[in-house]
């Protein structure tokens, strides 16, 4: 272990000691957020604004025969009504490929239905009036004549012969030959390595099982909200909270048929997103209402609307099979996933296929995914989209395999852990990664040594997420007093201002308190990809580092001018320009240089517009202890430890926070959260009372271990950290419960009634 252990301790592969990175200062936007001053989506008002309200379908599946808006328009105070007919047609071929494929055609029909409604809550019209109360009254007077169709609520429903079709033009892609008939299956994807079928013949032990999970919502506390204003010259301003102001600009422009250059989006603080705010719902409606009414329009969703019509992520069926030798060596694996996409194609099933076996070094793997449309809201990204369900299946069969082999579940994973050079089933060869290190840390953690009592169980599970880079921009401006403003285009969803400030502080060598990070509107900073894919600290951070370096270079030139020496004579140390080989010149602080800026060339700034490559993948291992009440089926989480290779923790408190928050979202997914529909496809649990997310009294402290194996693709070794932590918990909780009750649980959530029926053998 000697050498490897030494490598583990390498914090900074460039060999430099950090002064600011890794410290825990108070976040720059903190005071505003603890005093109520911070402005979130719904906190913004414009003089003279009116209020919009969405008319939503009460049916899960119906044809729209006629919409009559006359009665609504006649209500005093109503200023505008819009329906699908007011919006331009989008070319069905218009798609963007990102973390998941985005079809603008589908998205525009998700924002407002055209010929059909496809889920309970689907928007069919919107009303704007001088008060929210009038808008609500008028919305109820919009008359929609429906031809109600039979809803398709599950994968099983959707695959039935003669199942009602959601889309008559949906032909399964990825199958040969191309199907002659449309169906509810949008796509088949496959990732294959080696010859898994043949390899199973070599296996001495095989475990195979089918798992199911339900639709769950991101559950951000802030409902979607926006204000839109259309000026007389056609220029549009939108104030809203989202995961990307540039995304809101391009989507809204497209769906409203407006040139993108005529739309300005001003980002509000965002009250949680977890992927759910990487798309838009209200903004195009608000813009079209504002245009018709000639007034600014404010729209906010209720919680009922959020749950019925935004998010969620796919429920699905996952079949996993692993084959191993008696010593625990994995010889073959198979994963088949059916994910519910919701009303339009585009579940994250391909990402599930790519991630399920990614933590393991295996020569023979097959992962097949089916993207299935059903009459539920269109799935949106949710933290490591697609990965948690796939990992739940794989990590469960591995746990069962460990039990059958009489092996420790961590030892089994260590024996098969992906390492540098491992070929992942989805195509890449891993660079230096820290998965094995998370397993070692788990094995050695005090948590893993604590003896368990009756009705208690301990579960271990791991998870993988890619993390992405992409386009990011940053500008740093040096103020006359030598302090710095850092401008970026990424909404701060969980403390990224703090990490931007720390990285800039590291480059400049000044106290982080002298750096003010701000998030600019779409006309004040160049394009940046949205906040998602765990990319901001990595990619935008890289832009900030380069922009700060650019400003340092500028200040060195200014110092050379002030001293009248060669640039080569100027070095930069701890926030000051120093003159090499001459003690005639006293070091110049940033304030000294900034004070003379007008004599040395004007204002001082630096900028960087980059497309960041080299994002490092994230691996995590979680340990969960539970106690099951055999009489009620209630599960209590006793202890929980989340361990992850984070590359380099810029602000360790916020990195720990990502691990803790992701773990708890996963615990909720595993234990209680699910969409409950009635026979007609109407959502029954449209509030937080019965869409039951974890509360403080449900949980213990969530312990964390930050393993730091630097990512060579980032100057400070950063890996994205936000998404990986939600991948292991489903498996960790389910494995703990399975061991506690002595039976394998395969269906989530493990709510008391479901678990009780498993315990009672029903």
């Amino acid at each position: 272990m000697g050498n490897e252990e030494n490598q583990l301790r390498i914090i900074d592969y460039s060999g430099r000691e950090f002064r600011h990175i890794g410290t825990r200062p108070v976040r720059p936007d903190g005071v505003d957020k603890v005093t109520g001053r911070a402005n979130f989506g719904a906190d913004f008002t414009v003089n003279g604004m009116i209020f919009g309200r969405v008319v939503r379908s009460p049916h899960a599946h119906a044809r729209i025969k006629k919409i009559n808006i006359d009665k609504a328009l006649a209500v005093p105070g109503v200023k505008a009504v819009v329906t699908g007919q007011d919006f331009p047609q989008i070319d069905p071929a218009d798609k963007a490929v990102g973390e998941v494929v985005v079809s603008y055609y589908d998205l525009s029909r998700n924002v407002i239905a055209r010929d059909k409604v496809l889920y309970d809550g689907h928007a069919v019209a919107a009303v704007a009036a001088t008060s929210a109360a009038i808008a609500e009254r008028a919305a109820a007077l919009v008359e929609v004549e429906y031809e109600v169709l039979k809803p398709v609520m599950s994968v099983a429903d959707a695959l039935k012969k003669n199942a009602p079709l959601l889309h008559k033009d949906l032909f399964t892609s990825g199958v040969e030959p191309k199907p002659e008939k449309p169906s509810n299956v949008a796509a088949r994807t496959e990732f294959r390595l080696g010859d898994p079928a043949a390899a199973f013949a070599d296996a001495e032990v095989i475990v195979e099982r089918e798992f199911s999970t339900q639709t769950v919502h991101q559950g951000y506390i802030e409902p979607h909200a926006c204000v839109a204003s259309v000026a007389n010259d056609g220029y549009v301003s939108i104030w809203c909270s989202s995961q990307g102001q540039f995304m809101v600009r391009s989507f809204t422009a497209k769906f409203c048929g407006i040139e993108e250059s005529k739309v300005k989006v001003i980002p509000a603080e965002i009250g949680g997103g977890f992927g759910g705010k990487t798309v838009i719902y209200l903004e195009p409606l608000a813009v079209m209402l504002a245009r018709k009414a000639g007034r600014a329009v404010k729209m906010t969703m209720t919680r009922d609307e959020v749950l019925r019509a935004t998010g969620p992520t796919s429920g699905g069926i996952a079949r996993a099979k692993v084959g191993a030798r008696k010593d625990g060596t994995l010889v073959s694996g198979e994963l088949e996933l059916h994910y519910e996409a919701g009303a339009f194609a585009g579940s994250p099933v391909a990402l599930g296929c790519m991630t399920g076996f990614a933590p393991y070094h295996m020569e023979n793997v097959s992962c097949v995914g089916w993207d299935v449309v059903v009459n539920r809201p269109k799935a949106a990204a949710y933290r490591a989209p697609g990965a948690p369900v796939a990992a739940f299946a794989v990590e469960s069969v591995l746990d069962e395999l460990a039990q059958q082999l009489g092996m420790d579940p961590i030892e089994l994973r260590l024996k098969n852990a992906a390492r540098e050079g491992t070929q992942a089933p989805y195509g890449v060869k891993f660079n230096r990664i820290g998965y094995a290190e998370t397993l070692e840390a788990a094995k050695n953690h005090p948590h893993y040594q604590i003896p368990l009592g009756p009705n208690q169980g301990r579960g271990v599970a791991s998870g993988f997420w890619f993390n992405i880079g992409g386009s990011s921009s940053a500008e740093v401006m040096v103020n006359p007093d030598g302090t710095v403003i850092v401008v970026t285009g990424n909404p701060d969803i969980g403390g990224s201002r703090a990490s931007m400030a720390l990285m800039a502080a590291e480059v400049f060598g000044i106290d982080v308190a002298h750096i003010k990070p701000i998030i600019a509107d779409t006309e004040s900073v160049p394009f940046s990809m949205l906040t998602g894919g765990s990319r901001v600290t990595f990619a935008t951070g890289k832009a900030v580092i380069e922009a700060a370096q650019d400003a340092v270079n500028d200040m060195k030139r200014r110092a050379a001018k002030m001293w009248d020496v060669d640039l080569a004579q100027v070095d930069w140390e701890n926030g000051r320009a120093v003159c090499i080989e001459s003690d005639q010149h006293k070091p110049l602080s940033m304030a000294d240089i900034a004070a003379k800026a007008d004599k040395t060339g004007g204002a001082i700034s630096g900028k960087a517009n980059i497309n960041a490559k080299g994002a490092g993948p994230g691996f995590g291992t979680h340990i969960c202890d539970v106690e099951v009440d055999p009489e009620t089926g209630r599960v209590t989480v006793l202890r929980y430890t989340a361990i992850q290779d984070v590359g380099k923790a810029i602000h360790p408190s916020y990195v720990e926070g990502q691990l803790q928050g992701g773990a708890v979202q996963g615990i909720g997914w595993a234990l209680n959260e699910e969409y409950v529909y009635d026979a007609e496809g109407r959502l029954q649990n449209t509030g937080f009372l019965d869409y039951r997310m974890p509360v403080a009294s449900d949980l213990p402290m969530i312990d964390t271990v930050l393993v730091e194996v630097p990512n060579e693709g980032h100057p400070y070794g950063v890996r994205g950290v936000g998404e990986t932590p939600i991948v292991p918990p489903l498996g960790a909780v389910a494995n703990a419960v399975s061991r506690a009750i002595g039976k394998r649980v395969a269906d989530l959530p493990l709510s008391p009634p479901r678990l009780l029926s498993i315990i009672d053998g029903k």
Partner: protein
Amino acid sequence: MAKHHVTTTINGDPTEFLCETRQTLLDCLRDELELTGSKEGCASGDCGACSVMLDGRLVCACLVLGVEADGANIETIEGVAQGEQLHPIQRHFLEEAALQCGVCTPGFIVAAKALLEKNPDPTETEARYWLAGNLCRCTGYDKIIRAVMNAAAEMRGA
């Protein structure tokens, strides 16, 4: 229908506003008085983002009608800090990084303050049960509970 004239005290200041019968105290705070620190997360009393004190009692402002504020004493997140002087709970929320997005934070701070006024030395379990009416989706509650416990210790002079 004519609006109601409500005379109340908010964060120590005499305050008057007009409201419709149907408007909640939360609507009145946010829309009539521009006190937007109290947030609407559910409008059904399940998330606690609109927690305020009504005559010394912790309530969800979304479950109180605006007219019920007549003659009452209301305290909101905007009144927790004294000028630039943050309340110890606010300071500990910052020091322990007990917020990520921050939208639930005002409600948590108001609720935690109510807890410590009633019970200056809560156990971790007592703090967790008191704050069970406040939802946070970002933090997993760990750092929030630590911040509240550390603030309690500081306020006790421990």
